C-alpha cells in the first residue's frame, strides 16, 4: 500500500466509509481503503442497557489529518434522539452511552472553528435588538464571509455575518445537484444540542449559470461557542426548523 498523498483524499475516503458502514451490535463494522481504515468497535456497558461505541479512523503512513472537518451524528432508528461525536486528533470518536439496538451513523462536514454569535459591542451591557455580528472564539477571527468546502469539495457553505442576521449560503459547481437539499445546524458541542438548524435547496443561480445555490437567513444570538455543520446533499437527516 502507498502512503496517502493528500489530506482531502483521506478525509473523502473516510467520509465515504462512514456513510456506508452498517454497524453490527455484536461484531462492530470494518472498512478498508487505500489510505484509511475505519473500525466501529462496540461493547456492552455495565448497565447492560447501553453500549459504548468507538469509531477509529486509522490513516496509513501516519499522515496527519484535520479530523475536525468531520462530525458524526448518531441516531436511533425510528427515534428522534441523536448524539454528536467529535473526533480527537488521532481520528477517534467515542460515544460512551449508546442505546443498544438499531443505530445509524451519519458523517457531517464541520466548520473547523467554534463560533460565537453575539450582539456587537454597543458600549453597554444591555443587549440591543439590531446590529448583530459574528465572531469566532479562538484562533480564527470571523468578521467577513468564510467559504468552507465539504470534505469531497463538491459543495461549499458560506457563513455571512450581516448586521442583523446570520446568512448561510450553500453553492456548488456541480449542477447535477440542482434540487437537492443540504441540511445544516449550529450545535452546542458541550451537550450535543442543536441551537439552530435549517435546510437549503440548491437551485440554479440566476446570475451565474455555472452554479446551483441557495441561502438561509435568520437573526441569531448566543453567547456559547457553537459548531457549524452541514450535510452531504443525499445524507440529510436534520429536520426543518
Amino acid at each position, binding site marked *: 500500500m*502507498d502512503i496517502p498523498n493528500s489530506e482531502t483524499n483521506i478525509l473523502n475516503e473516510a467520509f465515504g466509509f462512514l456513510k456506508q458502514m452498517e454497524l453490527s451490535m455484536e461484531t462492530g463494522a470494518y472498512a478498508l481503503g487505500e489510505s484509511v481504515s475505519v473500525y466501529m468497535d462496540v461493547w456492552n456497558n455495565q448497565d447492560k442497557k447501553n453500549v459504548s461505541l468507538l469509531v477509529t479512523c486509522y490513516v496509513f503512513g501516519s499522515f496527519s489529518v484535520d479530523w475536525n472537518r468531520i462530525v458524526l451524528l448518531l441516531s436511533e432508528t425510528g427515534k428522534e434522539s441523536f448524539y454528536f461525536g467529535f473526533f480527537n486528533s488521532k481520528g477517534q470518536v467515542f460515544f460512551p452511552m449508546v442505546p443498544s439496538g438499531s443505530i445509524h451513523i451519519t458523517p457531517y462536514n464541520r466548520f473547523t472553528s467554534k463560533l460565537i454569535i453575539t450582539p456587537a459591542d454597543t458600549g453597554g451591557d444591555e443587549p440591543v435588538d439590531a446590529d448583530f455580528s459574528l465572531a469566532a472564539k479562538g484562533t480564527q477571527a470571523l468578521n467577513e464571509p468564510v467559504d468552507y468546502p465539504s470534505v469531497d469539495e463538491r459543495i461549499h457553505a458560506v457563513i455571512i455575518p450581516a448586521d442583523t442576521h446570520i446568512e448561510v449560503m450553500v453553492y456548488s459547481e456541480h449542477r447535477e445537484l440542482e434540487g437537492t437539499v443540504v441540511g445544516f445546524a449550529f450545535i452546542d458541542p458541550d451537550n450535543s444540542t442543536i441551537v439552530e438548524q435549517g435546510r437549503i435547496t440548491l437551485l440554479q443561480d440566476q446570475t451565474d449559470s455555472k452554479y446551483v445555490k441557495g441561502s438561509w437567513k435568520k437573526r441569531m444570538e448566543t453567547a456559547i461557542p457553537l459548531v457549524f455543520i452541514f450535510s452531504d446533499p443525499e445524507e440529510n437527516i436534520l429536520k426543518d426548523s
Partner: protein
Amino acid sequence: MKHEKGIQILAYVKTHAPTLNLENVIDFPHGFLRQVKEALPDISDNSEPDIFALITAICWIGPSNTGPLPETIWSTIYDRIVLSIKFDDRIDRVIDFVIAFGCGKWRKVREGTSNSWYHIWPGARKILADIAERAIRKKANPWLKNSVKGFPDMGKADIRHYVHFFIEKLLFPEFTMPVLENESFIIECSDQGATLKKNREIMNMILPGMKYVFSANMEKAEMEIETGKKHISFDYPIVITPGNKKVYILLYENNKKKPFIMNQNELCKLKGPFTLKRWECSCGYIHCGIRHRLSEWKPEIKLKDFVYSALKGVVKEIKTNSFINSMYFPDLAIDVLPTGGRLRFTPIEYKKCNKCDKEYEGETCINEECKRVFDPFRDKRFSKEVIIMLGLHPELYILKERYKCPVCSNMYDIYDNLLKNTVCSFCNTPYIEQSCLDALWKNEQTDLQKVRKLHKILMKTDTCPTCQRPRGEICWCPLGGDKLHTRHSFGCLPQRLVYVYSRVFYKIIAGDMYPYL
C-alpha cells in the same frame, strides 16, 4: 466434507451461536463446538472432527449474511493447520487459525465496506482486539502502574483506543512512498525533535523519545549530511530517534550498529529516486519485522502468546528494556489516556547518599533514618534510563543540563564549583572582574564554551591579582579536590553537555502548589 454439510453447519450457527466474545471463543472446544456436535450428530459423527471444528469456527467468527462458505476458504486454512499442528491439538487451535485468516493472514484482503468472506472479517478483528485488550489490561498496564510514576488507571474505553492502532499496525505493517528523481527525503533536527520532509513538504514531526522507522527498495544509498556523505545500507531498517536537541539515527553497516548523531539545525538528505518503506510500528526493535506483523506469525506459537509478546515485550515478566521494544510503548509515547501526558524512556537523575549509600530522586535521602538533604559537594549524582511520564500538570520531571565528570562520572552542574574556582579563598576577591568576563564570553554560545574559555584564562593566573597569594587547584566537578581529580588536565571539564530529567516535588502553600527545589 461435503458442501451441503457446510451449509447445514452455517444455518445452525446463524441461529444458535452464542455471543461472539473472548470468553466464549476460549471455551469453543468445550462449549459451542460440543453444542453443534450434539445438534448435528449426522454431520459431526465422521472421521474428520478437525474439519468439522474448523468449519464451525469459520461460520461463527466469519461474516454473516454473505452466503455459503466457499470451500477454498476452509481448505486454505485447513492446509495451514495440517502443516503446522499435530492432529491431537488441532481442535484446540482452529480458532487461532480462523482469527488470523479472518484478519488477512495467508491472503490479500479486498478493500471496501462489504461484509464478505474476501474482506477483513469484523468478528475476527473484534476477537483479536479482545485479546489485545486483555494483554494491556492484565499485563502491560499493571506493570506500568507499578513502574512509572504518574501512570493513570485506564478504563476499558481508554484501552480500546490503543487496541485499534495496535491491530492496524499488526495487519498492515508497511507503506511505501515513492521519492522521485528530483526529490529528496529530508531529516531535520530541531529543538522540538525531528522534522521529516519530502522536498519542502512536512510529512511527520517526531518528538523526543518517539521513533520513525523506515527502509527502502534498495540495498545501499548515499546520505548527504553536514560533513559530507554517508554510505548507508538498507539490510536493516533505519531508526530515527530524536533526543534533547539531537537526533540519533541508527544505521547498520555489515550487520553492525553504526549510530550517528545530528545536532540542532542540521539536516540530512536522501536523494531520489527510491521507494521509501515506512514501518507503521515505530518500536525500533531489531526483530520488529518478524515479531510485530501478523503476516510473520508462526502458527506453532499460540496467537494469544504472539499478541501478548507484541504488546508487552518478548520476556515473560515485563522488564523496561523489553517493554520499550513493544508495540504498545510507541503509542504511549504519543499520549497516555485518560490523563494526557506521554511516556518517555530517558535518563533521569539519581543521587547517592554519601552517608547511607541509598539511591534516591529529589533533594532528600529517602532512608527514614538518614533523610539528609542533598549536597552537591558531598553526594554523587548519576543517571539511569527509565520510563517516565511527561506532560503532566504539574510536571513530575523537569529537564536539566548536566556534565559528566570524566574522572568519577559524577553528573554535575557546571556552575556548582564556579565560585570556588573563580574567587580567591583568602581575600574573597574574584580573579577576573565581571566586565572582563562579559567581554570574554561575548562570542560564546553555550555554558560549556564559556567555562572552557574561563578555564584557559584561570590557568594563566597563578596568583590572586589582589592579595598575590597562589591560586587554588581548579576543578569543575564539585566532588573534586582529591588527587585523582586534580591530576586531570582540564579540571574535569567534560567534552559535552548531557540532558537528564530530574524529579520535582511540590509543596502546597496557601492552596497553591510550588516546586520544592
